């Protein structure tokens, strides 16, 4: 009897378990075409919800989405700001007093009005209490006092004039007084430790946070009472996908709408050929450089520093060590992504020229007298130096080796010594016991960081002027750019600073990395590319994940979709001239833009990106793309048309550039049309489409009358020799082996 009952129990228990699993498994991705949700993955887990503890990009995105600042970054020009929560602002003559007039129509997420009290409260709180994140760190250093003039006017008094005030102080997010005052009153309140709950995260931004789990991510709903243009999607989620490959796979499958980290370089070609993914290249604002100890002879000589800069082939480093996904560094240090602040002339100061290097060495009197292949200084010491770099970064280890090779060619001996990061910092920052070092620097949006890097008062060990560079003229300019508040005047000085650096070369900028971002254009449109978060400039972000995108993304089906009618191109040496005809709603597209970027197929890597605006009246965009690090071979160009509202479509084109360097005229005869995705189609069908055959036929006509025909047929979206293919082969082998074992004669 007992036996029977236990058996019944067993059956019930196991049946329940099995059915639960089945329900789970067959709860199929009824991935309804939920059109009005934006899914933006984070590569690492956000650490906290506290605005005082924001110290990673991921935490900044999660917390920053909720809050807004007095000013916002200009999406087209990251060095400038536009008034945001403030209607307008004024600065007095000497730049020590700023008056902000606030908008009167702003309400907090909980319905309370936003007033000057909130601004005053926020800045006073972070001025007095120790915070640990990077949002408010500059406030106590610069701000003397913040006072309320009336309910909608606030005056900041500064300790000294400070040009980066707008981007480094006024950009700080404003917190609600009615939420934080009771918390700040608590006896044991410590901003660097306090962890707010979801309900305390009340901001003025376009999205309200509804859930947060550091392990899973955050989700938001649109703020219906937003003072500005209402968000065009109803939900926003930031899931954590802490694996670069899984993030890309999710994008490819359509589980997420963009990526927040570079697509793996070996998948770029596949992503570019996907009709639903627009790939964009963004130069990072950071830079990697070689630095000298400018207090040690012969690095005290400007001419000698120039020699070292001349022996470095920066294009070679980009092509071979970064896999082509980078650009040679700006000798003036600023990454091209800083827009207007970048002085194009500073690029001309440094080139790869071993002959010139030898000539300068000879003229300095550094001649090899004893014939051992190493030059000596006039007083007889050999030119033998050590370059140190972090051992964890293979790129910089290899740069060290290359540097040693190049230096040997001009008669200088350089020993590459990769060391542990701690040892390296100890040597270059604290003790100053080094000749040369390889480092990287991640920049803020305001060029004031050059001050930290090169002003003589910042010389290590007291600051980050690791080169111990001391140049009175540079010091003067760096001090000037700090206090000049007028944008144009300041820009002139920043341009002069860059030229001076490119000439003096206390650091040799080696490369800026290029991030590869992808966005899906089939479900959401209206992405905006910008560095700086937009309505909350402190929430550092770049690529497509920024406040401007959040305000503008909307279901692609609501947007007019441009159609690329015809693409013509002509190649001349390393230049490709494009003519792209675009139609939208059956009319020639009269505004908007066309973005063309290229990767190499013969020699992989990022080869250039241009943005074409101002079309001719019949909707033809024209422009010339210069291929970086040109070599004859096959290239893949991606042409993205974006109408002013954000609707996008794309095409890919294979271009073969022949050995001949003389001008070649080519004409495309047929180009694939990107398939139009109708909103009715379910996600699953979209997946199928992504795998459809892409055919490209290119006919190349040369001027000489010789006609060559290139026909490229891409059968499937290939993963390259991928894990999947290797896996498939391995599985087949295993199964076959298993079958052999299965079928082999039975042992007795």
């Amino acid at each position: 009897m007992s036996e029977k009952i236990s058996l019944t129990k067993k059956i019930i228990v196991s049946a329940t378990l099995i059915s639960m699993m089945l329900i789970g498994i067959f709860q199929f991705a009824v991935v309804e075409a939920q059109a009005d949700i934006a899914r933006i993955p984070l590569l690492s887990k956000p650490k906290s919800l506290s605005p005082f503890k924001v110290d990673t990009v991921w935490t900044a995105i999660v917390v920053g989405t909720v809050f807004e600042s007095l000013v916002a970054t200009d999406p087209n020009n990251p060095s400038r700001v536009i008034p945001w929560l403030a209607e307008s602002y004024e600065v007095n003559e000497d730049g020590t007093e700023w008056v902000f007039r606030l908008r009167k129509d702003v309400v907090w997420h909980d319905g309370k009005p936003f007033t000057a009290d909130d601004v005053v409260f926020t800045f006073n709180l972070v001025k007095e209490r120790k915070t640990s994140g990077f949002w408010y760190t500059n406030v106590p250093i610069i701000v003397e006092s913040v006072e309320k003039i009336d309910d909608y006017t606030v005056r900041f008094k500064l300790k000294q004039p400070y040009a980066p005030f707008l981007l480094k102080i006024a950009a700080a997010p404003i917190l609600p007084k009615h939420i934080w005052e009771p918390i700040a009153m608590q006896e044991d309140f410590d901003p660097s430790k306090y962890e707010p709950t979801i309900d305390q995260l009340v901001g003025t931004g376009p999205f309200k946070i509804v859930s947060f789990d550091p392990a899973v991510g955050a989700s938001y709903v649109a703020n219906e009472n937003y003072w500005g243009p209402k968000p065009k999607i109803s939900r926003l989620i930031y899931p954590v996908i802490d694996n670069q490959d899984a993030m890309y796979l999710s994008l490819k499958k359509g589980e997420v709408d963009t990526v927040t980290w570079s697509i793996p370089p070996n998948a770029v070609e596949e992503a570019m050929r996907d009709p639903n993914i627009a790939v964009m290249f963004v130069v990072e604002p950071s830079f990697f450089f070689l630095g000298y100890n400018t207090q040690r002879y012969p690095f005290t000589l400007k001419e000698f520093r120039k020699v070292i800069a001349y022996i470095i082939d920066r294009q070679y480093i980009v092509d071979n060590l970064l896999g082509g996904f980078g650009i040679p560094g700006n000798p003036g240090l600023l990454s091209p992504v800083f827009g207007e602040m970048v002085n194009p002339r500073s690029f001309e100061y440094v080139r790869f020229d071993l002959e010139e290097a030898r000539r300068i060495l000879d003229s300095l009197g550094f001649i090899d007298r004893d014939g051992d292949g190493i030059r000596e200084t006039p007083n007889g010491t050999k030119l033998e130096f050590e370059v140190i770099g972090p051992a964890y970064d293979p790129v910089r280890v290899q740069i060290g080796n290359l540097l040693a090779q190049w230096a040997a060619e001009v008669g200088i001996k350089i020993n590459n010594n990769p060391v542990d990061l701690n040892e390296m910092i100890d040597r270059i920052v604290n003790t100053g016991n080094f000749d040369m070092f390889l480092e990287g620097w991640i920049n803020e949006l305001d060029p004031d960081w050059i001050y930290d890097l090169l002003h003589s008062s910042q010389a290590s060990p007291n600051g980050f002027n690791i080169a111990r560079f001391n140049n009175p003229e540079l010091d003067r300019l760096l001090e000037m750019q700090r206090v000049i508040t007028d944008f144009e005047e300041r820009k002139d000085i920043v341009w002069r600073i860059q030229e001076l650096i490119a000439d003096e070369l206390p650091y040799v900028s080696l490369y800026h990395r290029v991030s590869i971002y992808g966005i899906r254009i089939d479900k959401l449109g209206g992405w905006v590319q910008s560095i700086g978060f937009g309505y909350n400039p402190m929430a550092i972000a770049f690529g497509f994940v920024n406040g401007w995108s959040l305000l503008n993304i909307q279901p692609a089906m609501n947007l007019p979709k441009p159609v690329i009618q015809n693409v013509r191109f002509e190649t001349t040496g390393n230049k490709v001239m494009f003519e792209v005809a675009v139609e939208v709603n059956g009319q020639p597209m009269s505004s908007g833009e066309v973005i063309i970027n290229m990767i190499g197929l013969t020699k992989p890597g990022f080869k250039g990106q241009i943005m074409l605006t101002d079309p001719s009246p019949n909707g033809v965009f024209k422009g010339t793309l210069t291929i970086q690090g040109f070599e004859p071979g096959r290239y893949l160009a991606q042409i993205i048309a974006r109408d002013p509202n954000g609707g996008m479509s794309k095409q890919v084109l294979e271009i073969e550039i022949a050995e001949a360097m003389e001008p070649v005229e080519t004409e495309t005869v047929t180009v694939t049309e990107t398939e139009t995705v109708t909103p009715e189609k379910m996600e699953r069908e979209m997946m199928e489409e992504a795998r459809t055959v892409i055919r490209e036929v290119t006919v190349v006509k040369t001027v000489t009358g010789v006609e060559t025909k290139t026909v490229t047929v891409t059968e499937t979206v290939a993963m390259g020799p991928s894990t999947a293919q290797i896996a498939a082969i391995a599985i087949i082998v295993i199964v076959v082996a298993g079958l052999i074992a299965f079928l082999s004669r039975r042992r007795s």
Partner: protein
Amino acid sequence: MSLTRYIVRRGIQSIITFFIILAVTFVIIRIRGNPLAFYIQNPRIPAEVVRDLIEEWGINEPLHIQFINYLLKIFQLDLGYSIHYRKPVIELIATYLPWSIWLLGMSVTISLVLSMIIGSYLATRYGSRLDRFMVFMGLTIRSFPVFWIGMIILYYFAYTLNLFPISPTTYLLTFPPQNILEWITTLFYISALPIISLAMVHFGGDLIIMRGAALSVSTDDYVVVAKAVGFSNSYILRKIIIRNSVLPMVTYASLNYALIMSGSVIIEAVFSYPGVGWLIYQAVLLSDYFLIQGAFLILSLVVIVFNFITDLIYMLLDPRVRLR
């Protein structure tokens, strides 16, 4: 020996083990050097801030005092304060550990149950084609790297076949469960692939062990007698062979928990599954003293508890253990 006395004795043994682990982790982590080295090197951080931090974290005291303080705090369930996250360690672990325990528990259970059933069945058909095929497959799967199996399963089942979500977190946030039933089904759905991968990896080994154990049992005299008496094959399998061969199986499984833990860290990374593995990885990378200490402590606690439970199961399965 009575049941209670046995449990008490095993309990005391577990506690002693726990303290030994506690002391060892304490020492090992301190061998790594000054946790503040990274911060001190930043010239921007004023010396007094560093001094304050050292005092706040109590790392200026002599080592034995630190250890006593540490023990006292553990009894108050205070594992310290994470330097990197600026949150209590216990809170951090509480966020991630349930996910890992769920993954571990499910995969171990599935692997054990399946291997018991299939292994003992194979033993009865020793030398058959099926037997050789399964042993071959078991050994092959066992010798593959965990991450590789994970990646293949992810690629085929989530991407190519589109049966499961690639990222559990995206699914959870896109379709937030509304009630408890939905929670359960969603949990099964999003964690199915990592559970299956981890179970697969361990199934290979478990199967071989179970088959071996069942084989040795099936030649024992009492099985022969049972056959002679005329019991049905299925009865012999269920009542005699499985029951007797489960013992070595349980021993093997309990010894394997630590290994499974390490495997789960990798699987979590491949499937971007929100588990404790990521936390430990980051903590070691960032030299987050208290977090490493706390995480290792909790993990060893989990292993000890699992072992303790195994012992209890052992005792229920085999009355002879109680008598010894």
